[in-house]
């Protein structure tokens, strides 16, 4: 493991890879800093740029975008009181208060250091625990994978928010779309209507580009004319002091660990993590009344919490092949494009790829810290870029990105269709992430269910005969139960 990690670090720091990593981090921060553009959208838009790259360079760049994007969201939150991404909503509470006091540079530097702390701790924990879990997952066979996919599908319940039914509806749309193409066992054509392009199924990349980039661009277009020019308050360029650093360190470390644990639970994303860490820091504080009034510990907890998710979310993706949230679903697409299959076998067959990812995450966090601290003035300018100019650029990149995967005009049609569908669903308050997660896990569930039935000669006894499968089925039931309870609680609170 140490050898692989060392080689990975050498690769990440090489002259070929480091500039790509820096480009990814800066690109991620830039996109994340623009209100409305999320880390998921950033990874989706920049994904086409990786098609011509080798697998290491491609993954390193996307990891950089992911880590930079989560941090970048906080810049708009702190400077404008507008979270750049949902993950940075908790940073508004204390970050913007500090900006109002003229301490924006102090807030941004605390944000950069806490994000680094969260991301770095998270990556170290990922390096320590992911290989153990992957080793355990080598025992899995079709029944275990079916039960795991079923458990993974319950993520849909937890990311549906207060409206569970609408989340399930989105999930069912994704499942139905995933059945298009040749049947995985008998090769019977399903919903192909004689079109050759549909025989291999609907490719995930144009779907995610449509859902997360095009639909978002269309939504942003509605408000672009009415938006006022973003103007910044004047602020001092004085960054955090040694005393500040000493004060935030325990909170940042604790929130980093907590964020990693939350991130490793499928369905619990950076937005949930930042609020949980913020509340925990407030609960543990001797001066909770300062929270919401410019508390540096509050800001640090939210920032370390949301970046702590970055490593945690990769645990189920890399070890089990199950994406925990939308952005890891997009990263899964990137791995597949590079001819890699996430899951326990990735650790056995392509250990260099896994450790390159780990190493690049470590380096990406360091790059994010340096760029974040040096570039405070520059990133303040980013949020002044007019959205009216960014929207067509996102649209054009989405369309050519969809085309570039297979040089196919059909894929452009798919991206546009899903862009319009996503826009319509957003209008009806139907979440989009379940569609993508269902599209990924649907075929895994179907194929392994049917393989299991063939293995057990049409008997369903594999559901209770095999302890690991049974364990996942119990987890599935518990996950559904807790999601229903959570949804009811949220509805009651809203009423």
């Amino acid at each position, binding site marked *: 493991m140490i050898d692989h990690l060392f080689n990975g670090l050498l690769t990440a720091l090489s002259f070929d890879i480091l500039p790509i990593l820096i480009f990814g981090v800066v690109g991620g921060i830039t996109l994340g800093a623009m209100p409305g553009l999320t880390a998921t959208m950033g990874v989706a838009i920049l994904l086409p*740029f990786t098609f011509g790259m080798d697998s290491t360079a491609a993954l390193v760049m996307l990891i950089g975008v992911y880590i930079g994007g989560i941090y970048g969201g906080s810049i708009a939150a702190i400077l404008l009181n507008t979270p750049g991404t949902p993950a940075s909503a908790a940073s508004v509470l204390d970050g913007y208060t500090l900006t109002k006091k003229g301490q924006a540079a102090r807030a941004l530097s605390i944000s950069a250091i806490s994000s680094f702390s969260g991301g770095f701790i998270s990556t170290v924990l990922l390096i320590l625990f992911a290989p153990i879990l992957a080793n355990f997952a080598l025992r899995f066979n079709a029944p275990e994978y079916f039960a795991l996919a079923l458990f993974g599908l319950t993520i849909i319940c937890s990311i549906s928010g207060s409206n569970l039914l609408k989340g399930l509806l989105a999930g069912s749309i994704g*499942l139905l779309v995933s059945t298009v193409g040749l049947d995985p066992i008998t090769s019977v*054509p399903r919903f192909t209507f004689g079109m050759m392009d549909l025989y291999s199924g609907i490719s995930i990349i144009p779907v995610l580009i449509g859902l997360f980039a095009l639909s978002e661009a269309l939504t942003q*277009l509605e408000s672009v004319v009415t938006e006022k020019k973003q103007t910044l308050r004047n602020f001092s360029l004085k960054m955090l002091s040694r005393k500040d650093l000493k004060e935030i360190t325990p909170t940042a470390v604790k929130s980093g660990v907590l964020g990693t644990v939350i991130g490793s639970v499928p369905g619990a994303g950076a937005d949930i993590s930042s609020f949980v860490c913020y509340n925990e820091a407030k609960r543990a504080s001797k001066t909770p009344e300062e929270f919401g009034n410019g508390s540096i510990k509050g800001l640090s907890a939210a920032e370390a919490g949301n970046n702590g998710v970055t490593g945690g979310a990769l645990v189920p993706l890399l070890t089990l092949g199950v994406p925990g949230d939308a952005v890891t679903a997009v990263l899964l697409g990137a791995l597949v494009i590079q001819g890699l299959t996430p899951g326990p076998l990735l650790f056995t067959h392509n250990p260099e790829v896994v450790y390159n990812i780990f190493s690049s995450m470590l380096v990406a966090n360091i790059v994010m810290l340096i760029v974040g601290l040096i570039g405070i003035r520059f990133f303040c300018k980013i949020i002044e870029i007019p959205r009216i100019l960014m929207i067509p650029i996102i*649209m054009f990149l989405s369309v*050519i990105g969809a085309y570039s995967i297979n040089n196919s005009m059909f894929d452009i049609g798919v991206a546009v269709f899903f862009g319009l569908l996503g826009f319509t669903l957003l209008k009806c308050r139907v979440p989009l992430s379940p569609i993508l997660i269902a599209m990924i896990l649907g075929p895994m569930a179907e194929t392994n269910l049917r393989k299991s*039935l063939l293995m057990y000669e*049409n008997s369903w006894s594999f559901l209770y005969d095999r302890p690991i499968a049974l364990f996942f089925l119990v987890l599935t039931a518990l996950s559904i139960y807790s999601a229903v309870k959570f949804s009811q609680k949220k509805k009651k609170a809203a009423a």
Partner: protein
Amino acid sequence: MNVKKILLPSVIIVISVVALYFISQFSVPNFQDASVGSKFFPTAIAVLQIIICFFIILGELLDTESESDSAPFLNKYSLFGAVFIIGYATTIYFLGYFLATLLAFGVYLLFFRTKNLYYYLVAIVFTVVIYYVFANVFYVALPEGLLTELLYD
């Protein structure tokens, strides 16, 4: 009752029923001896979808407390966006990336009555840079367009 809120689930019910019809037309291989065939999964999903939509509609019908949403589904900008993206996808097929992107960017800026020349410059630079980067750095060929191919032929 808000008609807008039940429109989407109603449309999805219709789509699911149509899907069920197509599923019934799937061929069944003679060698198949498994209890779960190619029809099982799509059928289960379509039925599940109908049940979910039914409950969403029921929830909306019983919900008398929430205020009806009177805002239009599309404003003129989102409608323009939808037409624009379909138009761009079609134009790129005929004219190729370069001409289609320049044309679409121009139309977009004119629609929003942008007088800032800097924006038009950005449009040109963006189009050229992306073309260059994809062709020479990533070696990804962008669409040439039907018209260009005909001209070359």
